[in-house]
């Protein structure tokens, strides 16, 4: 029966299930019931199970303990005598002896154990002194909170606290840094915001400003404001105007009720309205002209009569579109530019950083002025950005800023910066062909070129000039950019004709469009090449190139017998005309797979280009991995046969394994065929339990095994020592190395 008891305990505790198997449990209880000896035997078995370093095993054992504890006094006495150990193994009160993995099960075990201790204490605490002592010990010393569902022990809580503390410190540091940053930046932000606000004001005066504060503002004054912001769509300013003057209906009604108003007055009003109406483009204005319901009948009558209206029920709906459009023109360019810059600054710099501040402050749980300040800043930024968006500024195509100087009125001032240089007399400017574009000159005609030796073909010239021109235009410091601007401004100017291109163009005069298209196609096709010496001297014959001049010795006596004054060096000449083009080819990913059959039935997945390191040259194979070509098949067959022949018949691995199993001797069958079989041979002891080794088998642990391998360490140390030694030998006589 003892045998059976041991078996039962083992089976119960290695099931790995969260619940005990009721049949076996019943049997166990039956055995335990039969005699006290069995109980103590079971107790010892269970204690050994509880000591296993596997939480699932402990958990199952604990469940069995719980069952028996409720039933047998003998068992209780035994367990309580060893209660401290029991607590260590199930609750994990000893921080040096934590509960074993897997973690979730350990957590569950701890919870269950704590609950059990509490229950037991309630039920048996009075009778078993040590049990109540243990309970109090958990409660008072280990500070186990029996209400705490998470059932964390002090050690755990402390760990948690420490982590929290560390986090807090990090946050504190960050908050401090943020605060500093905020201090530094908020001034900047405020400045930018003010700038933007001012720009907005200039672009489009705020209607409400007028409405609220500027009641005394005369229309004249306002009109003077409007031109200043000139091409701002005026409807906004119109609003201001309207607001200032008060909407006409209210203007009408009140005086009417007082019977002060005259028709003429009204007419003048309408007149006044008209120009406004004209100014309104795009936007419409809503204005509800309706009767005041508060008017009583008499008033109503008078009202109708006074105005010559038939009905009182006219309604006039005017829609005001709120979208504004700001057109850029010469007058407001500067403002728009600064608005744009400010907006860019807001969007790219301040907005993200303010966002990150808020995020950080909320995460750090800062709840005071700093957060409020940050949120305020954010709101301000958002309104500014929104306003900017609402402005709907339609830009002219942005040009180089340097160029714009020429557009602006202050061009003269800019030019004052330059020192006037007197024209050089007799100076005949020669600008090399490839630089002409940069200077804003048309490519020079070949015959007119003063130094130009030979005219280059038109095609290479243009192909070169095109990308170059583009580059130059991108560079604002270059005159070409200016030229482009001018050219863009005058699109109707006939395209400049170069003398080189004149002839072919004349030939193709009939179909200039087709020609141009063709040219464009060619240009698209033409490769973009980096500039080099060869291009520099393209088509030019360098007379001095490749010539090495040797100076004759001017010594009185010593002179070489014969001096060749000039040596022609072919190589250098060549160099000026050659271009090295490396052709590495293009990478083509491998599409095929090795697909050789593997021992486990699958096909090899390797994608080598030519040769698989395991299965040799890659050959076409069918779906089951058999070579398509007959000769390949034959070769593979032969190889297999040879391999079999190399291994004698009696060493057939299957047979060997059987023999080994029968005799219990190791005949080395596992050595023969490598890793696959070794794994098969090793059988897991308890297949139901979670494999702890598997969990521990992470890439890190595998690497650790390799890196911290003793042999490897020794090797590395040796190598390093050798290096040190060598250094020592080399520099032993220098004091600063001698110490190594």
């Amino acid at each position, binding site marked *: 029966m003892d045998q059976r008891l041991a078996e039962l305990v083992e089976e119960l505790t290695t099931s790995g299930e969260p619940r005990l198997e009721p049949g076996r*449990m*019943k*049997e*166990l*209880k*039956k055995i335990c*019931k039969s005699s006290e000896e069995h109980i103590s035997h079971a107790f010892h078995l269970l204690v050994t199970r509880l000591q296993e370093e596997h939480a699932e095993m402990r958990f199952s054992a604990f469940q069995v303990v719980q069952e028996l504890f*409720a*039933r*047998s*006094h*003998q068992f209780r006495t035994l367990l309580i*005598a*060893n209660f*401290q150990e029991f*607590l260590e193994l199930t609750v994990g*009160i000893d921080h040096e002896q934590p509960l074993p993995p897997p973690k979730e099960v350990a957590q569950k075990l701890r919870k269950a154990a704590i609950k059990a201790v509490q229950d037991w204490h309630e*039920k*048996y605490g*009075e*009778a*078993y*002194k*040590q049990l109540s*002592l*243990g309970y*109090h*010990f958990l409660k*008072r*010393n280990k500070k186990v909170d029996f209400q705490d569902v998470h059932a964390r022990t002090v050690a755990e809580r402390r760990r948690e606290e420490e982590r929290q503390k560390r986090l807090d410190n990090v946050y504190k540091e960050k908050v401090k840094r943020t605060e500093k940053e905020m201090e530094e930046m908020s001034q900047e932000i405020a400045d930018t915001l003010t700038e933007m606000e001012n720009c907005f004001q200039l672009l489009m005066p705020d209607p409400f400003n007028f409405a609220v504060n500027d009641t005394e503002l005369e229309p004249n004054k306002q009109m003077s404001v409007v031109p200043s912001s000139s091409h701002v769509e005026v409807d906004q300013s119109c609003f201001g105007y309207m607001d200032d003057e008060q909407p006409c209906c209210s203007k009408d009604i009140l005086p009417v009720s007082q019977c002060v108003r005259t028709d003429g007055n009204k007419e003048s009003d309408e007149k006044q309205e008209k120009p406004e109406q004209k100014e309104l483009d795009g936007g419409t204005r809503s204005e509800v002209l309706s009767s005041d319901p508060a008017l009583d009948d008499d008033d109503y009558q008078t009202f109708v009569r006074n105005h010559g209206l038939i009905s009182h029920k006219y309604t006039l709906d005017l829609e005001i579109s709120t979208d504004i459009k700001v057109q850029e023109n010469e007058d407001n360019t500067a403002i728009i530019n600064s608005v744009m810059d400010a907006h860019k600054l807001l969007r790219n710099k301040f907005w993200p950083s303010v966002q990150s501040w808020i995020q950080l402050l909320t995460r750090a749980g800062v709840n005071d002025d700093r957060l409020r300040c940050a949120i305020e800043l954010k709101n301000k930024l958002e309104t500014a950005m929104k306003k900017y968006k609402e402005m709907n500024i339609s830009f002219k195509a942005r040009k180089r800023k340097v160029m714009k100087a020429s557009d602006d009125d202050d061009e003269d001032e800019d030019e004052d910066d330059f020192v006037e240089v007197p024209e050089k007399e007799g100076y005949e400017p020669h600008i090399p062909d490839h630089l002409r574009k940069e200077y804003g000159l048309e490519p020079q005609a070949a015959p007119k070129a003063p130094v130009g030796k030979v005219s280059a073909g038109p095609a290479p010239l243009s192909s070169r000039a095109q990308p170059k021109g583009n580059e130059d235009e991108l560079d604002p410091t270059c005159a070409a950019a200016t030229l482009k601007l001018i050219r863009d401004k005058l699109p109707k100017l006939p395209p400049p004709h170069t003398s080189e291109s004149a002839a072919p163009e004349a030939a193709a005069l009939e179909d200039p469009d087709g020609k141009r298209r063709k040219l464009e196609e060619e240009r698209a096709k033409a490769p973009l090449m980096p500039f080099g010496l060869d291009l520099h001297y393209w088509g030019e014959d360098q007379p001095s190139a490749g010539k090495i001049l040797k100076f004759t010795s001017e010594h009185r006596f010593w002179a070489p017998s014969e001096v060749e004054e000039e040596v022609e060096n072919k190589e250098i000449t060549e160099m000026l005309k050659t271009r090295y083009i490396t052709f590495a080819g293009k990478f083509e990913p491998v599409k095929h797979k090795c697909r050789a059959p593997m021992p486990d039935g699958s096909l090899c997945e390797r994608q080598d280009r030519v040769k698989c390191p395991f299965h040799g040259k890659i050959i076409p194979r069918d779906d089951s991995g058999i070579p398509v070509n007959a000769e390949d098949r034959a070769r593979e067959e032969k190889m297999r046969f040879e391999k079999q022949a190399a291994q004698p018949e009696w060493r057939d691995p299957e047979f060997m394994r059987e023999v080994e199993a029968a005799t219990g001797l190791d005949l080395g069958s596992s050595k023969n065929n490598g890793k696959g079989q070794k794994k098969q041979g090793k059988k897991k002891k308890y297949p139901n339990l979670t494999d702890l080794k598997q969990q521990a088998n992470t890439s890190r642990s595998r690497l650790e095994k390799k890196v911290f391998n003793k042999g490897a360490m020794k090797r590395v140390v040796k190598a390093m020592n050798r290096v040190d030694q060598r250094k020592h030998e080399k520099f032993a006589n220098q004091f600063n190395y001698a110490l190594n």
Partner: protein
Amino acid sequence: MRISFAAVFQGKSSKAYVSSVAHGTPLVLSLELNKDRDVERIHESGINTLDIEPVEGRYMLSGESDGVIVLYDLENLTRKPSYTCKALFSVGKSHPDVHKFSVETVQWYPRDTGMFTSSSFDKTLKIWDTNTLQPADIFYFEGTVYSHHMSPVATQHCLIAVGTKSPKVQLCDLKSGSSSHILQGHRQEVLAVSWSPRHEYVLATGSADGRVKLWDVRRASGCLSTLDQHNGEKSKASSEAANTAHNGRVNGLCYTSDGLHLLTIGTDDRMRLWNSSTGENTLVNYGKVCNESWKGLKFAISCGCNPEFAFVPYGSTIAVYTIFTGELITVLRGHYSTVNCCVFQPHFQELYSGSKDSNILAWIPAPREPVLDDISEKSLPQQHLNPAYEDAWSSSDDEG
């Protein structure tokens, strides 16, 4: 005067002795954690030291590692079997004169309960008036105080021996209120001191240098003898190991009640019994006595039993040895953390132990089974049995 006191002690202890002998086996052997006896839980940190006053054996002092001292009444006057020892008063954290750090030793004045002494890691030794709970005197030292002891039998002097961090043993005279003597000889801190219960001028001290020295405090020149674990035989092997009682720190000393033998314990996990008059190692083998304490360890020797037993803290348990054979009788389990001290109450043959888990446990001899002279009485205890002790197997077989 001396005789009269001695007679009092003799009388008390012999009563208990007689009672135990009459039953055939010492009561001590049946010590168990009794559910009827509890000690009030006041402490919040570990108990370092306990002392029961020798006059009545009724009041117990406990010193805690956060400086608190509590006094318990052990006597059960309720006439009920279950009794919780009440804390009569305590020198708590709010007391102006409380020890700042861990209290290492408390001891009653041997003559009466009007006075007690306590020493602490805050480098002081305090003499307390029990009735007013005010310190009557405070001695200051340069190092932390590990242990102090007053002679239980002294009539001619009123000296307190104090072992501190310095290697010199200090003697404080209660009459003059000054540190009168210094005993020089140890090389490291003195962890344990104990006066002989037989000779009032004889003092034993144990130090971290592994030596146990016996002193006659009347002699200024030096110690009487240094106990040698090898009895002088192997001392020639190395001069360094010569004259050491233990290979580790000696952190516990206890005389047998008759003062003829001295028991020492050290961090080499050994316990040794010495003949206190000759200084000879009796070579009793107690086996391994686990001892990891880095400060003084208070263990107790029974009184009035035959043979005598030693109660030694052994991790979180208490090991009970017979002194003269070294046999491990039993292990008392009940604490959940390291046991720091034991104290034996001779009148009722009870043992009290204090541990780091802040529990004081009372180990009471199990009540003897009533003599089975009547059959009707035999079934009686069964009825009285606590229902918690009953088995609860389900009745039907198939339910198991």
